[in-house]
């Protein structure tokens, strides 16, 4: 059996767990992240939603129901977390624009507008008005993007088609990483006499962060990316940037591994053992952070009998009583009861009524976060991740 010893181990490698880990490494802690698989941010638009339906998310969080996890973070905590995120991205060559005090809009692949707060530079021009002229460039054979949904919303929209020789989102994005391919695209672009107006493309402009900037400069036009259905290239860029930052800081990543068993010393967690094919690894730490996400990632599991289980430490999980109350009848109305399910924590992000002194919880696994209803997915994950890391640091110090 292999072993490892750390100050803190983060279980769950989503945006929340990764941000918590980054925060701790910056304070000089020895950190490991264990993750069963790739997180939800890889499926997302890559934008940071903090709180929708308000002008200023930073001001809006105080009006949320009193058990919402944002209240444990506060406006100051939100500023620190967003600041850390933006600087980490910048170091990786991925600029984000926007601020926590002002929401903005981007164009969605359904032609609707989506409200969000921080957006990658490649979507900075995504706030187009319906009376503006829009140019959409599409890629032949790409099965997850249909321009019609978008152009229907504009009085003046022109569509141009480029043949990349590949129909998958990731396939096209990988081609754009190659300078020779970029050059082909550029030549085609020049030959098209493309009409005036902002230029929108599905988000496939390179898996590497610098590709967009290079292209934008070459084309010398206002261009922007429209996020696509999963898999999402902007989400992937963000995830890679977070992971690289951690590796550079010397953290250990146990990827593709999940926790098999937990050892305790009294109430405290002493170590976890990771399953793996033909090998298992025991890792000890002084503190643990649980960031395994909600149902989609498997941090929570809902049973037919109406019970919700937490999958790593078997913590007690809150869920509205009676399966019938989990979902309303309208798909388009968010705020289904089940969105409230999760782990309840105290002001130090420790799970309530368990008495475990060295465990902290963050991200979408937290009870009452209702990320869909409030449009606060990544914002809440980042804010609670960084704040939980701060509480963990207090414990370690």
């Amino acid at each position: 059996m292999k072993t490892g010893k750390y100050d803190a181990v983060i279980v769950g490698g989503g945006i929340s767990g990764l941000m918590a880990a980054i925060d701790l490494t910056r304070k000089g802690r020895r950190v490991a992240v264990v993750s069963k698989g790739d997180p939800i941010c890889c499926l997302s638009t890559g934008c940071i939603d903090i709180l929708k339906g308000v002008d200023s998310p930073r001001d809006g969080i105080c009006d949320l129901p009193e058990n919402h996890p944002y209240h444990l973070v506060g406006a100051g905590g939100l500023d620190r977390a967003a600041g850390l995120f933006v600087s980490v991205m910048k170091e990786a060559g991925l600029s984000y624009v926007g601020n926590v005090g002002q929401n903005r809009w981007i164009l969605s692949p359904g032609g609707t507008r989506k409200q969000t707060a921080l957006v990658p530079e490649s979507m900075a021009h995504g706030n187009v008005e319906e009376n503006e002229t829009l140019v959409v460039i599409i890629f032949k054979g790409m099965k997850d993007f249909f321009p019609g949904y978008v152009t229907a919303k504009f009085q003046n929209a022109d569509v141009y088609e480029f043949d990349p020789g590949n129909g998958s989102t990731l396939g096209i994005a990988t081609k754009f990483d190659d300078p020779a391919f970029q050059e082909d695209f550029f030549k085609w672009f020049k030959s098209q006499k493309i009409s005036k107006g902002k230029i929108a493309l599905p988000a496939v402009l390179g898996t590497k962060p610098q590709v967009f900037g290079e292209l934008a400069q070459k084309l010398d036009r206002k261009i922007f990316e429209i996020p696509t259905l999963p898999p999402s290239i902007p989400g992937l860029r963000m995830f890679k940037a977070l992971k690289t930052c951690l590796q550079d800081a010397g953290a250990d990543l146990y990827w593709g591994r999940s926790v098999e068993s937990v050892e305790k010393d009294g109430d405290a967690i002493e170590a976890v053992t990771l399953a793996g094919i033909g090998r298992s690894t025991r890792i000890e730490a002084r503190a643990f952070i649980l960031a395994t996400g909600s149902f989609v990632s498997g941090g929570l599991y809902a049973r037919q009998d109406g019970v919700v289980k937490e999958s790593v430490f078997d913590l007690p999980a809150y869920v509205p009583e009676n399966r019938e109350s989990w979902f309303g009848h309208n798909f388009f109305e968010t705020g289904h009861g089940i969105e409230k399910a999760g782990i309840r924590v105290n002001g130090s992000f420790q799970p309530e009524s368990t008495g475990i002194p060295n465990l902290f919880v963050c991200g979408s696994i937290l009870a009452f976060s209702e990320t869909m209803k409030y449009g606060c997915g990544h914002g809440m994950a980042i804010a609670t991740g960084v704040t939980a890391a701060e509480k963990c640091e207090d414990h370690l110090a």
Partner: protein
Amino acid sequence: MIKTDVIIIGGGATGCGIARDLALRGIAHHLIEKGDFAAGATGACHGLLHSGGRYAVSDPEAAEECIRENMILRKIGEKCVEQTGGLFVRLAGDSRRYRDKFLESCDRVGIDTELLSGARALDLVPKLNPSLEEAVRVPDCSIDPFRLCMLNAITSKNRGGVFHRHHEVFEFIKEKGRLAGVRARDRFTGEIKDLRARVIINASGAWGKKIANLAGHDLPMNLSKGSLVITNHRLTNMVINRLRPPSNGDIIVPNEAVCLAGTTSISVDSPDNLVVGADEVDIVTREAGRMIPEFNSTRLIRAYTGVRPLLLAEKDATDDRSVSRGFRIINHQDGMYSILGGKLSTYRLMAEKMVDTVLKEVFDKTVACQTGDLPLEGQEFLSGYPLSTRLKDMKDIICECELVTRKDVESVIDRIGTKSIGDIQHRTRLGMGPCQGGFCTYRALGIIQEKGKITCDESMGALREFLQKRFRGIRPALWGDQLREEQLVEGIYLNIMNMEQQ
């Protein structure tokens, strides 16, 4: 104005069966259906082609009809019937005396049975409850209701029959105290069509009363809904019934790659806007789980509900005769007939009796019925195409769960000129797998759009309608992996696409 001999209202198995029968006897006809084929009870049933075993004890006449029709349908409809065979399993605590009665009654009506030990039954269906007492083998089959309707329609169309799908009858044309025709509205364009005929046949199943009311008649009937669930894979290759008097949740039917289990029986006021309750899902999974324990841990991909029309006392109807205990034909004496009740399994017989009746009473003719002798036309298109060959031809897969390609989708659009995602689903199985269209519908609608069949705005509307309908089907089965998948789909449409109610 369209003129014809017979108007059929309803494109379920009964209506489509009548169209085929009329066609083979040379009578011109138009059929009007407000949805796609099989939009009613036909598409919401188990798809069990009964051996009759289920009714042998309680209703031997119906059982006899079932076994006769079963033998006919497996002969004429090879490509929509899977000859699975069926078992009636007796679990610990189920009456032995009922078993004896069951065997005796089957014997009397001519249903072949074979009594099997528990061990023998487990050889045939390894996932059965290992503690079962014994099982009786019967000639049950699985039948694809949608294909069945479509194939019946092909015979009709080959002989000049006309189908108006997605058209809703909303008014009758009356003349001199008689019903001279109907008015129907195209549900996509709103366009109104007037149709006239010598006789109108109301084959609208649970909607029968609504149609009769439009014509100014009453049709005393009660409605009972039954709910079913679908698993994400096939747990048995044979139909499994519980060996006891008919009750909740005692039928499991394999169909293509999945299994269907049901049902419940709850009285309702209207056949529209029904929901499946969490308690109904629990009843069905619990009962099915007694016969096949793995049912309890298997992922359900959908739940849905269908409505059975139950006819009330006969005295209120103007004229009715029980051609059979199983179904009834009512002459409203003003140019309309209603046909009600029965089962999917006996649809052909119902059609035969209905057409016999109008031929004699309206057209004053006798032409022999041929529907039981000739194979269903158009089966050559359903080439029981094996998955292995299909995989080789796969390019541009649009629906990953059911392996449907862009070409498949385009060819349906070209062939029938459809604007409806449901039409494509039924014909290709697009969106019928575990994600239930969560990923592929955006794509399929995009393709309809590209083909110029609908505007982009219409496709957004169609996408909304589809997502809501899909959600209704999935909602009762949301726990475990299906809940997880649902939240992912919510993320796509409500977050990335921001389609939330505004």
